[in-house]
């Protein structure tokens, strides 16, 4: 693997490899000494053009546990705020000897541009681009589901027949998009649940079922319910009348939590708006995997960095073959 840009083009074999290596990484994180010497001498740059705390520190923890050096580059207060282009920023990082660039950018497709432009030879990991994808989040969600389902026996298993309902702001959610493609690749059945205004205009090409009613979705007995954050900063164009109404119709309140079938789990990518899309009862219930997702995020990102950086570097691919893959 040279880059991790999206889950739409991620093959089943590569996805399974990341999840299985993440199992080994998770094992090492239970030890007294959590640090591995594997990426000693490698440099990982966290290039964050959008605010993020948890994703950035998760990548930082992952790189440090593998003994890589980490450089954090936040666009605020950097040369980018003076008008530097992505190309110049990238070439600066290249000149500093970055081996991997973890990029979060407000523009969909920025990581692919970085990976295929020829500006840098480093491996590129997409840590969220616009409303496009956030592949490591989907991988850690899948890892979490598999772990709850199979426990220590997770290696080599996919999510065949597993029913997942993704609830909330699908329209703006890169987490939802990455999950749709990855979960489909792994054999799960995905249902999207949202007000009609928060479903993208054309989802005919997506391997999903659409529902507009959360109670109906819960009655269909999903194995996992993924509650998305209502991104209040993007809610300027009245997608629903009031937060209160959204919460009443699409929020996971205690009554809906109680209606979930036995054994089903509740995921949330965080940060949570308690009382809006998810009630405190749901967030703190034993069904909730929120904290496991954070822990698993480090393991999945360690696996990604390992697979990108540890081996012999594959030759740089041109844009054409990158697309063909």
């Amino acid at each position, binding site marked *: 693997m040279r880059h991790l840009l999206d889950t739409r083009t991620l093959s089943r074999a590569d996805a399974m490899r990341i999840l299985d290596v993440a*199992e080994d990484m998770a094992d090492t994180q239970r030890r*007294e000494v959590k640090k591995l*010497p594997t990426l000693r001498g490698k440099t990982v740059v966290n290039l964050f053009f959008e605010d993020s705390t948890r994703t950035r520190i998760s990548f930082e923890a992952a790189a440090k546990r593998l003994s890589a050096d980490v450089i954090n580059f936040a666009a605020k207060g950097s040369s980018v705020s003076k008008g530097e282009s992505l190309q110049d920023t990238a070439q600066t990082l290249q000149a500093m000897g970055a081996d991997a660039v973890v990029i979060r950018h407000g523009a969909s497709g920025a990581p692919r541009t970085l990976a295929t432009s020829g500006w840098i030879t480093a491996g590129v990991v997409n840590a969220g681009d616009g409303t496009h994808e956030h592949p490591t989040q989907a991988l850690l969600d899948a890892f979490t589901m598999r772990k709850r389902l199979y426990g220590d026996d997770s290696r080599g298993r996919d999510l065949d027949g597993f029913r997942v309902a993704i609830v909330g702001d699908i329209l703006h959610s890169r987490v939802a998009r990455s999950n749709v493609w990855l979960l489909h690749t792994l054999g799960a059945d995905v249902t999207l649940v949202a007000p009609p205004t928060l479903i993208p205009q054309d989802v005919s090409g997506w391997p999903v079922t659409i529902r507009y009613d959360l109670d109906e979705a819960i009655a269909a007995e999903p194995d996992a319910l993924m509650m998305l954050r209502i991104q209040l900063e993007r809610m300027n164009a009245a997608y629903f009348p009031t937060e209160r109404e959204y919460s009443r119709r699409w929020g996971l309140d205690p009554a809906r939590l109680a209606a979930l079938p036995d054994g089903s789990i509740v995921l949330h990518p965080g940060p949570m708006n308690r009382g809006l899309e998810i009630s405190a009862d749901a967030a703190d219930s034993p069904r909730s995997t929120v904290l496991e997702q954070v822990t698993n995020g480090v393991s999945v990102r360690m696996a990604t960095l390992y697979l990108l950086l540890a*081996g*012999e570097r594959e030759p740089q691919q041109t844009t054409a073959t990158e697309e063909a893959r």
Partner: protein
Amino acid sequence: MSARTVLHEADIARALTRISHEILESNRGPDDLVLLGIPTRGVPLAQRIGALIAQFAGTTVPVGALDVTMYRDDLHRNPTRTPHPTEIPAGGIDGKVVVLVDDVLFSGRSIRAALDALQDIGRPAAVRLATLVDRGHRELPIRPDFVGKNLPSARDERVNVRLAEIDDLDEVTIES
């Protein structure tokens, strides 16, 4: 390319029996022993030795697996290796006598990596090394304590260990 078989099924069984007796003898019994196989083929070898020791000493000894992939010094020279699970027995390794079990001892670099990996897991009282085949050409000051067969070989020859658990038959061949 010609391959010749240097150990047959019965030879391997005899070698493992002898190694098991030697481990018990040098440790003065089965107390505090922990056997850790190095993936891939060290793991079934450790399990076989564990079963033999249990048979000879009348008590089971903990057997596990120690993956050394993340500690190798040649990762960047090869295509990305997929790690294997590490399984440390419930009692841990602190204060125990750990016997590392590998199929072929060659440069000694895997064992160097294994010693580093052990250090991150705990502090054994002693670490010993058992190998089915020692083919020479050491690049580090590492030597085995228990050897199934010393097999003088040229550096460019290949020594293949096949075990029933993985390869459906027991044999050791040398290819040149």
